[in-house]
């Protein structure tokens, strides 16, 4: 990823907007962009989703492979989550090996899903010590206008929820739906003009400072946290964000459940 020049004018403008309690695209501080979620959109994937948040567009595709269980966990299958942001998604993304930014994206989403325990890894075992399913969740950005984290996390969980385990293709019985016991949801906050906002757009990310990602499970249980980029935040700021995340994850979970 090339490091974009951040014009001082943009930062000054964002600070001024913050003082006047407004945002660069006219939203309220805690308001998300228009959201569109579609599931089952990729014919070659066993589970898939397309999420659009404003001008940010991502795909998630779930595929299954046969793996040999790890020797210390012979009764478990695996989950692998990888994010790719290729040059198609924006002029500042460049070709080449995965950038630290896209690795962080994949790993933060991975932790939220893995640690929530929504996938029963024991149920992915076929023959203990020999054969198990590996679920591979690929997150793929089409258009980056900020907050790829939330878009990836949402697309990822929707793709898993409609995934079908392709047992027939591997001669292991009949196809069946992958079971998910929980729906972890991520909410991301960026410090823009000196205060945190929800669901930052590209220009807010460009002229902003640190960001915080929170993944909550069904009972408001915390499953993953990540602070990214340079910046300092206070416990009070965090409490405020966490309060909003509790409300917002419930709204988003309703949308996911209605699909």
């Amino acid at each position, binding site marked *: 990823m090339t490091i974009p020049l951040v014009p001082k004018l943009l930062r000054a403008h964002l600070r001024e907007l913050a003082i006047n309690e407004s945002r660069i695209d006219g939203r309220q501080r805690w308001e998300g962009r228009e959201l569109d979620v579609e599931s089952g959109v*990729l*014919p*070659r*994937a066993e589970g*898939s989703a397309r999420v659009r948040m404003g*001008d940010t*567009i991502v*795909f998630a*595709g*779930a*595929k299954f*492979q046969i793996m040999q269980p790890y020797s210390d966990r012979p009764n478990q299958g695996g989950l692998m989550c*990888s994010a*790719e942001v*290729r*040059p*198609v*998604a*924006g*002029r500042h993304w460049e*070709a080449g*090996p*995965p950038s630290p930014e896209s690795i962080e994206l994949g790993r933060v989403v991975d932790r939220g899903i893995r640690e929530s325990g929504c996938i029963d890894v024991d149920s992915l075992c076929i023959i203990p010590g020999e054969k198990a399913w590996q679920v*591979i969740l*690929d997150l*793929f950005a*089409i*258009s*980056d*206008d900020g907050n790829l984290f939330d878009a990836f996390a949402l697309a990822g969980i929707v793709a898993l929820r409609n995934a079908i385990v392709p047992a027939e*293709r591997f001669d292991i019985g009949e196809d069946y739906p992958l079971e998910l016991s929980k729906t972890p949801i991520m909410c991301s906050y960026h410090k823009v003009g000196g205060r945190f906002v929800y669901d930052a757009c*590209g220009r807010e990310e460009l002229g902003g400072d640190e960001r915080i990602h929170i993944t909550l499970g069904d009972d408001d249980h915390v499953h993953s946290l990540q602070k990214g980029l340079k910046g300092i935040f206070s416990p009070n700021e965090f409490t405020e964000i966490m309060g909003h995340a509790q409300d917002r994850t419930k709204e988003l979970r309703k949308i996911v459940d209605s699909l």
Partner: protein
Amino acid sequence: MGGYGDVQMIDENGLRVDGRGPSDLREISIETGVVPVADGSCRMKWGTNEAIVAVYGPMEAHPRKIQRQDRAVLDVAYNMAPFSTTDRMRPGFNRRSREISKVTKDALESVVLLELYPRSKIRISIEIVSAEAGTRCVGLTAASVALADAGIPMTDMVVSVASGKVNDVVICDLNKEEDNYGEADLPMGILPNSGELVFLQMDGDLSQEEFNQAWQLNMDAAQAIHEKMVESLKGGDSQ
């Protein structure tokens, strides 16, 4: 080509496995402006193929050694998303995608008016998110629509389509089974206004007569596809 001549792919009525006649195309839909942050973009669905192409530029060409003093350079990358195939595709370049990127670039550099933008670069990202057969044709065709959507001057758009042969019958626009078990594949990149070519590949086995038939099928199909491309750029319904 697989060349398994004993697999019956054409029925007694001359229809193909998906019910098409020899010269029928799979269903095609084209949409522009699908990558809002790009300067131009296109999504093309062709059968169960789906390509998304974004165009960025003209912009500064760097590193400087790639710059040309008298013209722009095209930076074309064809890539298949990991979930685009039945078995997961490992991310990253491979020999196949490098070759397709190169021939796509060669085709597009033949039509873009590069000399208008000296020392600059135009980036064309072709992402196959769902693959059936003929993804290089979908990618090249979608790329020319995306270039037009970006307002990049060209002498003509490139229409790419493939014909081939299964069970000794020459057919247009091979699907997955026909591609796997067929006896020949002839993808071409055609300039619909002049009938000239900027892209040509072939593998398999065709007699001179079959070759001429396949050639003509491609030429005719290109006109039909070109109409849909123009329609999508006018903002109309391309279905």
